[in-house]
């Protein structure tokens, strides 16, 4: 089987295949999501890909009313804010992601610690196809 290089290009390609993947150091077992090609614990360079199960909890969030043009194009604006957050995965590592299925206009109702599961948002077509990592309440 082809081993993809441990970099962001491979990470993105896995996302487009609906897989959230990290790298684990052969030597010391340290685990990184997104992947690293150098282990910052032991400086080992032998890595293996490991798939994340995709369950976690919300550790921080924000409801963004003034977003970048790409989000405005998706229909988000001052009246319809979107949510971005930091998610701690069951595997003990954290990722930043979009948080779906939560009303960004009611931030007071969003609770830190709520359980979430992974979701993959495919946007654009052909050459421009991009997959965004997202989470949604369980």
């Amino acid at each position, binding site marked *: 089987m082809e081993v993809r290089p441990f970099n962001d290009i491979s990470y993105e390609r896995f996302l487009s295949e609906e897989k959230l993947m990290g790298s684990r150091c052969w030597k010391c077992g340290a685990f990184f999501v997104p992947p690293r090609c150098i282990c910052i614990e032991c400086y080992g360079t032998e890595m293996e890909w490991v798939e994340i199960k995709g369950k976690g909890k919300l550790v921080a*969030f*924000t409801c*963004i009313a003034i977003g970048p043009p790409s989000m405005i194009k998706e229909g988000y604006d001052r009246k319809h804010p979107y949510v971005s957050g930091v998610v701690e995965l069951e595997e003990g590592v*954290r990722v*930043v992601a979009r948080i779906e299925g939560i009303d960004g206009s009611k931030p007071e109702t969003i609770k*830190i610690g709520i359980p979430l599961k992974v979701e993959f948002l495919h946007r654009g077509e052909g050459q421009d196809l991009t997959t965004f990592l997202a989470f949604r309440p369980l």
Partner: protein
Amino acid sequence: MQKQRKLKRGVAMVGVGMSKFGMFKDKDSKYLFAEAFNEMLSTVDKGVDPEDIDALYLGNFTNDFFIHQGHWGPIIADLIGLTPKPATRTEGACASSALAFREGIFAIASGFYDMVLVGGVEEMSKRSTEEVTQGLAMAAIPYEVKAAFTFPGVFGATATAYFAKYGANREHLMNVTIKSHNNARLNPKAQFNVSIRDIMDQRIERAKHKGEPVPAWRDEKEFLRDAGVNPVVAWPMHLYDCCPISDGASCVLLVAEERAKNFTDTPLYVVGIGQGSGKGLHAKEDLTYFEATRYAAQEAYGLSGLKPEDVQIAEVHDCFSIAEIIHIEDLGFFKPGEGYRAVEEGLTRLDGSKPINTSGGLKCKGHPVGATGTGQLVEIWKQLRGEAGERQVPIKDLRIGAAHNLGGTGGTCTFTILERR
């Protein structure tokens, strides 16, 4: 544990200059820097011949994509008649000119140069808010950009983590905003040179004049709770939690310590400098502090032999209200989780025991990103030399001031300690 560092030769500040910060459709980067440069020349008590400047270090972050022009070192060197002497541009996002300052220190401390000009410039207001938001996001890390975090968004998420850990809330952030405006009201160069109370009164007057319903805000907090005037930008960051989009320039003239008295009887000595790097949100174990600030502070305190309690006033990088609270903890002025209480108790006000952001901070003075780092030093210069006018802090024997600058979402942090002897 960090190594104990030392400079091989002392360095002093003998002049400072700052353009007015604001949104100026009719001023470009060159004009803004000229404003700062001319003021700097006028602040050197015994005068200086610009011919004696050995080199320029210039911080700039966004001009490449906001006005499609890069390579600002030689452009500014030419502006001030410095060519063919060397000009070097530094980039550390919103900490760009703090890095220029540091390079200038090293150049003099090494013995290579005797006098250098350091500063920064930024021209941001000719773009829409959305474009600026997108441009600044380039200083976040790629994963954050992909997750659609904006700058206010990163600090918004930081605030939710801080609230959850320490029990603070939005009302505590408002104390920072109210204080910043009260200070900026006394700073003629501030972009928002008005208190929140002034803004309320203006709006009430305007409503009366137009025959519209008169707002019934009882106090500043009620005004800040009003979503009509203070809407969400990135929860819990509202408009009045965020620094504005600004144009501006600032600069500082550095000389070898042994030459300082040739230029002024009251130089400021650079006794501590520090810089650190930080990770993205996903890689931080705890979102409620900035590792890079703590590292920079440790380096600067170590070099100076001073402790946090020795620092009498400080400018800190309040790009967002929550950031000011976290910085005053990271710099050791208050314990982790106690910064918001210190602000609430008024300890950081002009007349408090530890005045913070006497200039009005980034929130009110303005934040032309590349000009902010050396702009903060301009305020410390004025305060330590007793030249801050109406906003002069009433501390007896004011000798030690400091400035903390942060780039991006905490990727680059610097801390500088200045002393008047």
